[in-house]
Structure formats: C-alpha cells, structure tokens
C-alpha cells in the first residue's frame, strides 16, 4: 500500500533526538529514524519497546545446555559405557565445561540469526536507503502522514527549529 511519507534530515544527533521527541509529543506516527551510528537516547525518543531478542538468547542457551547434559550422560553411560580410569558414571562436574561451551555457542549464534531474520538482513540484500548519506553523516526522521489534518508546512516549520537541513514529502512503499 502506498502512503504519504514526510522526511526531515538533520546534521546533529541532538537535533534528531529533539525533533523525534517533538514529533512523538505532537502525536505524529514515526515510521523510522535513520542514523549513521546508534544514537544514545533515541530508543526513548521514539518510544520503542525493548527488543525481545534476549528471550531467544535465553531459550536457545537453556535448550542447548539441557540437550548437551542429556547427550553427555547418554553417550558415556548408556550408549557405550566406557570406564576411563575408574571415573564414576555420574560425572556431572566433568560434563560442565562442554555444557557451558555448547550453551554459549547455541545462544550466541541463534541470537544473531534471529536478529538477521527480524531485522530482514541477508547476504547480498540490496539496501533501500531513503537518503544517500544516512550511513555517513545524516540523521533522517521519517513520519507517516496518517490523515488529511497533517499540515506539511506546519510540520516543516516545527523541524526548522531543530535545524533540519532538508524536508521532503514522498509517496512510498516504506516498510
């Protein structure tokens, strides 16, 4: 569905932060903010909910650890019991290091894969940059013009207070 989008570009992070906060306070719908680095405080300005990725990390780490403990008991006690140096069948302390490593491996790798999936990143994917310099030195605030009451001229003047270097209206298929 095509929708009307309003773009405002800034040169400084303070301006981008201020404009984003002001846009949210005015009740505009913030589509996204583009920035060349992770701006401290932008999460609060955009009122983003915390990411759920830690749950993926926790769940996969737990599953990895449990499966590994089970596997270690199964291989050394049941599938092929091999007595090495008279060590007890139930050698839980000796199983801890590998369990830990497998937990870290699974938790780490799966968190990154989950991140790529939810953020829609993938090898060779073409980047749809809303503006050429957002990976270099521009901060870009993108709003959606939700209804006819959206007065572009008024919004532009609001963002001028935050030293917007460029404002723009486009019809687009924004994500």
């Amino acid at each position, binding site marked *: 569905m095509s929708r009307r989008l309003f773009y405002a570009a800034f040169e400084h992070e303070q301006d981008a932060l201020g404009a984003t906060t002001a846009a949210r306070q005015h009740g505009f719908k913030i589509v996204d903010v583009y920035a060349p680095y992770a701006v401290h405080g932008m999460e609060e300005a955009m009122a983003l909910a915390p990411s759920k990725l830690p749950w993926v990390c926790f769940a996969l780490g737990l599953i990895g650890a449990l499966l590994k403990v089970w596997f270690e008991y199964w291989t050394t006690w049941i599938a092929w019991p*091999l007595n090495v140096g008279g060590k007890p069948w139930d050698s839980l302390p000796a199983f801890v290091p590998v369990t830990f490593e497998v937990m870290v491996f699974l938790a780490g790798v799966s968190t990154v894969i989950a991140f790529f999936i939810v953020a829609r990143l993938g090898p060779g*994917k073409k980047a749809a940059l809303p503006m050429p310099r957002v990976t270099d030195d521009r901060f870009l605030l993108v709003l959606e013009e939700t209804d006819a009451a959206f007065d572009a001229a008024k919004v532009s003047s609001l963002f001028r207070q935050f030293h917007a270097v460029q404002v723009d209206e486009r019809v687009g298929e924004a994500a």
Partner: protein
Amino acid sequence: MGVAELISHPPLIEGEKTLQQVSAEIGAAAERKPTWLWWLAFLMSSGTLLVGAAAVAYEFSLGVGTWGVNSTVGWAFAITNFVFWIGIGHAGTFISAILYLFRQKWRTSVNRSAEAMTLFAVACAGVFPIIHLGRPWLFFWLIPYPNTRGSLWVNFRSPLVWDFFAISTYFTISLTFWYVGLIPDLATLRDRCRRRVRGWFYRFFSLGWDGSYRTWQRYETVYMLLAGLATPLVVSVHTIVSWDFATSILPGWHSTIFPPYFVAGAIFSGFAMVLTLMIIVRRAMHLESYITLRHIELMCKLVILTGGIVGLSYGIEVFIALYSGDPYEQYAFVNRAAGALAWAYWITVGCNVLTPQLLWFKKLRTSLKAVFAISILINIGMWFERFVIVVTSLERDFLPSSWAWFSPTRIDVAILAGSFGLFFTLFLLFCRFVPVISIADVKGVLTYGRTSKEVSA
C-alpha cells in the same frame, strides 16, 4: 568550576572531527592503494607462512618424529605455541566484551583490530593441536557424531575434548561478534565505494544495512548479549586450556592456581600484542588522531595490572611448591630456576615481572618506542613462560629412569615461524579490506555536536 569538570578527561578522539571526516579518514585507509611498505610486509609474512606450510607438509608425510619430541617430552613446541596464541586472543575479547560491559568508551578506537587479532590468533592456535595428532586428517573424530565405529563417542570427561569444544566455540563466537560489529561499517564503505569488485564485496557482506534505528536498537541488544556471552566464555577458554595441564598429576602442572594464573597471563600477553600492533597500525595507516597516546597509556595500565597478577602467581606457585613438603613438587620448581632450562625461566621472570614495572613511569608509558620495546619483550617472555611450564615438567617427572631432554628441530622452529607468518598475513589482509577502527562506534564518542562532559569516559 565543579569537581566533575576538574576530573573530566580530554576528548578520546583528537581534533574536532565531523562525522563525514571520520568515515573518510578511517575508510581511506582501506580504500587507497597499498603502499610499498604494505607489500613488503605482506611478502615477508606470506613467505614465512609458506615456509611453515612446507614444514607442516613435511611433518604430515613423515610424522611427529620430525619434531624434537620424544616419549618423555611428548608435548613441546606445538603445545607451547598453541597456549601462546590462544592467550594472545584473549585481550581482543577483553577489549570488545568486558570493556564494553564496563562502558569504557576508549575501547571504540581499538576494539575492531583487537577482535581481528583474536580471530587470527585463535586460527593460529587451532592449527597446533591438529598437526600434533598422529593422523591429523582424522581430526574430525573429535566431533561426537554417529559413526561406523560403534558408535564410539568421544570421552566427555577428558580435558582435551573440553578444549576442542572451547576453542571451536571461542572462534565461532569471536567471529560472530566481530562480524556483527562490522556490518554498519561495511554499509558505510559500500555507500562510499566507487569500485565494482569491492562494491560487490561490501554490498554482499553489509546484508542490506540501511541505518534504520529499529535495526540499530536490535543491533545494540544483540551486541550486549554477545558481550555478555563472550565475557564468561573468554574466562572459560583459558581455564580449560590450563586444565589440560592441571588435571594431570605431573609436578609443576597439578596445581589449583592454574586457571586464574593462565587467564591473567593470557590477557597480559594479549595486551602486549595489541600494543605492538596498534603502535604499528596508527603510524602506518595515519590514524594517530584516533589511536592516541591516551589509548596506549590506558592499555599500558592494564598491562601493569595483569602483569602484577602474573608476577604474584609466579610467586605463589613457588611458595606453595616449597611449602608443600612434597619432594617432587619442590624439585620441579628448583629445577625450573636452577636446572638446565634456568635461562628460559629467568627470561620469563625478567620479561613478564620486571619489564612491565617500567610502565609505572609516565615518561616511558607515553614513549611509543619504549612501549613498543616493552610489548615485544612481554611477547617473548610469555612464549617462554609456556615453554618452561610444558617442557621442564615433562623432562623431569617422578622416575629418573624416564628423564629426557628436549631440543627443537628445524621443523619445530619453521612451524613456529610459520604461525607468525599466518598471523601477520591475515592481519595485513584485514588492514587492507576492512576499516581497522569501528567507524560507527567512533562517531558515537566524538566531540562533534556534544558537550565535553558526554564524551569523556
């Protein structure tokens, strides 16, 4: 003037740089044509790598008998090199994960190259246990997979199996961590790049990154999680390496102090290597305003701290051995300090305990030449530390009838040299194609558009 202003530090990055300047200056190092110096260094290191590879090929065709090892001293150069390289890697993870969790903003200038150093050092380390196998082409038997031998499983109670899991996890997580940190910078280079092949390379690996803050937010979460996972991981890796020794009953190895002693030694040696590399990189790539004297000084202070822990461990080790009342343990340490390899032991003590003390002097800490020399001495000392631990304990075990000597062959030396060749070849390629400093991270600590209070940390 308030107290906060009095103690506030100078900015981390020298000069009032704009965001675009940062992309250009760091990107330029990877974008411009390599200098003759780079080519010279590359030819030398890849040449050394080839010598090492030829030595490994020779060893594969004839067996480990081409090394100086014998039935008493079964572990020598290969295991020394393995522990040495793994240790080098630890400083990279320390900088990228532990200093991140402690919100040390100065890490932003050095984390990228320190992490790359970790990867290459772990790659060098990983070679040694494999070429030490009787039949190295069967190394995959270490992986517990259903097989036609029964299924015969690996022995999960063995520290050597723990080691295999630790090293492979460490390499994978370090690679993941490094790559995730690299994605935004690859996108920056992609958007600056005017060349076709390179552009394709950056487009492919930047995964379509567009700087969306929704992605940045998730990225920050993932980065934090990986840092949280890598922190205990790095401690576990060298702990497990130390267990390769400590779970045996050999005098000089069978000691509970080994895990903390090894972890501290690893970070210590790694910082020495980071300093060696950074001093060369900042000069060769004209990045003096990003990797400043302050960065060098801060790392020197960490060298003093970890070096202190290492010195303390040496002392405690000797004290406990002499106090133990166990003649074998006592002999092992007397033999180290006064036996045939005493020269190696005193090189270790001299380089690792005495040399870092010079860094207490600010004059030396801020002199690049002095720091460079000290970092090289520490690298040498830490290699000898592992050599002394591995070889002296094996040469003189319980029964005098089984005592033997170790002397390295040319193949041993060639493989050691080859590992340095591999390390520097990979590092030079890294400097050539990838931004050596994290562009996005550095942009976050600039004075640009900020008050000085926000950037000093």
